């Protein structure tokens, strides 16, 4: 049984069909990358999975159960966590707090226990802290130590991206949705992040669905690649299969005008 399954997922924005009958599966422990030109509907797919938008058609099921009608926080509690393309860290909270928030749905302590500081509160607080530090330690020493108590806006851009991933990890998901984790990073950082994504699967055992524009990242870690264009799936398979697919090239580079010679149709992108 696939971990995540989308069947005929559809979303309209007015006259625009952002996602058009998308069917996609993510198996446990698998990295699936979602590629496609700008406006292909990749982020909309993420928003549909995490419940930020209700789908207009089709269904998303997670571990065999439909996610239809669930609130975003309920979906997170089921085991899906995401990052955002435009960073959405809690700027005026410390690094540690940022990550501790993600443990919210794993906590049970209520108002009275918090006010009275009962032992149950102390225990849970210690557990949440431990989980948060564990998630942050994944990035070596970059986010721990004195950084724990630093306000998040003090972090560098790359560290904010890492913080977002750590925050998603602290939600204890089974599936991670990473929206362009390498956007705006330099080649060195991109390489490091690519390795990290591989480690997330191999060491932590997450299934990962991620959006990427950088083909080297896609090539580096993907078990499966899915290409979208205008909300439709145009190709899926291994990296090699997808990048040589004619419809993918067409989506990125456009169609040759007819009669301009078929011979050079095999032109590589770039």
């Amino acid at each position, binding site marked *: 049984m696939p971990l995540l399954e989308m069947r005929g997922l559809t979303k309209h924005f007015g006259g625009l069909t952002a996602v058009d009958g998308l069917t996609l599966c993510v198996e446990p422990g698998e990295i699936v990358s979602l590629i496609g030109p700008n406006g292909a509907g990749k982020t909309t797919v993420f928003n549909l999975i*995490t419940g*930020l938008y209700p789908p207009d058609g089709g269904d998303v099921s997670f571990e065999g159960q439909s996610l239809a009608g669930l*609130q*975003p*926080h309920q979906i*997170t*509690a089921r085991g899906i*966590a*995401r990052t*955002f393309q435009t960073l*959405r*860290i*809690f*700027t*005026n*909270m410390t690094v540690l*707090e940022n990550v*501790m*928030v*993600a*443990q*919210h*749905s*794993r*906590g049970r*302590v209520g*108002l009275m226990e*918090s*006010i*009275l*500081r009962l032992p149950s*509160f102390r225990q*849970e*607080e210690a557990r*949440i802290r431990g989980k948060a530090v564990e998630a942050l330690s994944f990035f070596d*020493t*970059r986010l721990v*130590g*004195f*950084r724990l108590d630093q*306000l998040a*806006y003090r972090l*560098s851009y790359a560290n904010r991206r890492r913080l977002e991933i750590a*925050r*998603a990890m602290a*939600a204890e998901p089974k599936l991670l949705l990473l929206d362009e984790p390498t956007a705006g990073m330099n080649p060195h950082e991109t390489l490091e992040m690519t390795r990290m994504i591989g480690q997330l699967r191999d060491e932590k055992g997450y299934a990962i669905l991620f959006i990427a524009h950088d083909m080297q990242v896609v090539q580096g870690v993907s078990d499966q690649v899915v290409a979208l264009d205008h909300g439709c799936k145009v190709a899926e398979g291994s990296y090699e299969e997808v990048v040589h697919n004619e419809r993918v090239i067409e989506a990125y580079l456009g169609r040759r005008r007819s009669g301009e010679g078929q011979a050079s149709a095999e032109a590589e992108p770039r």
Partner: protein
Amino acid sequence: MSTKPDWGQFGKDEWAAREEARLREAEAAGRLSFRLRRAWKDMDSRLKMLLALALASTLPLFVHNPYHMRVAGIVGLYIMLSLGLNVVAGFAGLLDLGYVAFYSLGAYAYALLASPQFHQHWPFWLILPLVIFVTALFGFLLGSPSMRLRGDYLAVVTLGFGQIAGLLLLNLDRVRLPFLHLEKPLNITGGPNGIINVDDIHILGYTVETATGYYYLILLFVALVFLVVFHLDCSRIGRAWRAIREDELAAQTMGVDTRRLKLLAFSVGASIAGTAGVLFAAWQGAVFPSNFDVTILIILYSMVVLGGVGSIWGAVSGALILSILPELLRSPEVARLMFYGALILAVMGLSRRAKMRGLALLGGVGVLGMALKVTLTALRPEWFLQPELKLSVARSTFAPLMRALNWWMLFPRDSRGIGNAAFVLALFLLLGVLRLKGTGQYVLLVPGLYTLAFVWETRLVEEPSVTRMLIFGVLLVLMMNYRPQGLFGQRWVQRL
């Protein structure tokens, strides 16, 4: 930090390495200021609160005037109210303009259940939990529209709710109930006349009657509310509130049930306000609609903003400053002392790097004043008053200051007209100071400061109620310009 960068640490996370080295260095040097600051920072807020409480509880030893004890009581109530508002507006970032309605709800609930109005005399320990429950419920109801509304829209809805509550208090004095054929309309809230003869609080066989008794009771509740707010702030719930304030959508996708937590914030804030209301009704022995008008709301928001939105100590200190300051202004001597003290401090503070310049500036203002005084009183003595010191002042510690003032300041006969003109002049002079740069600035500042002092003497000291509002405004404007995060708040970064 004059150490050269250690090139060996470059590449990995160079800045982090340097920061750690700097910390180690400061630690090793063991500078006293550093250690003290570290110790103060590491001290548990609850311990600090206990210290403050111990200090505050000795107040009745020094203050014997019952009026001053009553002022201390209302200061405590303001601290409670701003702590509660800080939960809604500070932690959760919800602009709740109906907050005062919960305050009035608590006060009127106590007044109705413990006064001759309906011949009910319920005990305090029964009313308090009831009020906490009912205000929390109303907070929940008011919070419900906030599920769909954000920012300004929420503010408008809650403001409407607050206004409705105020109107109800004013108009529920002649209610005609359908089907019940009463002889005369039912008087519930007493309308503008309010409810009087509210019972004192009986608690554990002891009746709280004196101003000092109420002071201690209020102090106890301030401590309780502080503890509740502090514990909530560093709990799972407090973190979730701050996450909602920072980015509601991200909080939601991180598993925070934003709907529930926003309602919780409204309820907690409302029940704190309700508790303060109960204490207020008993403390004042009466309740009137005018106790709960929009001015209170504005003052409460000023307190929270001045102290620093989202900071507990900020809420406490904001409430302290903005509730004590207006009381101090009641005495012209104290007000003068504060005004000139603040002026001198401001001048010295602004010319911190050029102390001589600051001193020269103050000397210039002094000389200008004396020169004006001597020449103008010699030329036109009929224009000016020569005020004598009041006997009470001449004997007090303020006497030297007042004598110096008489030598320096002009007191025109027509203080009103000339004071108004000087006010406009002062504004233009100070605006000019802001526009100019370099030496011109300092030169212009001399007449500017003198005119400001002149306006203060001729107009502002005479009308404390106007001055109070002006000082509120000036204080907030200065604060928002030079320290927008408030006294204790952390710097607010929207998005980088």
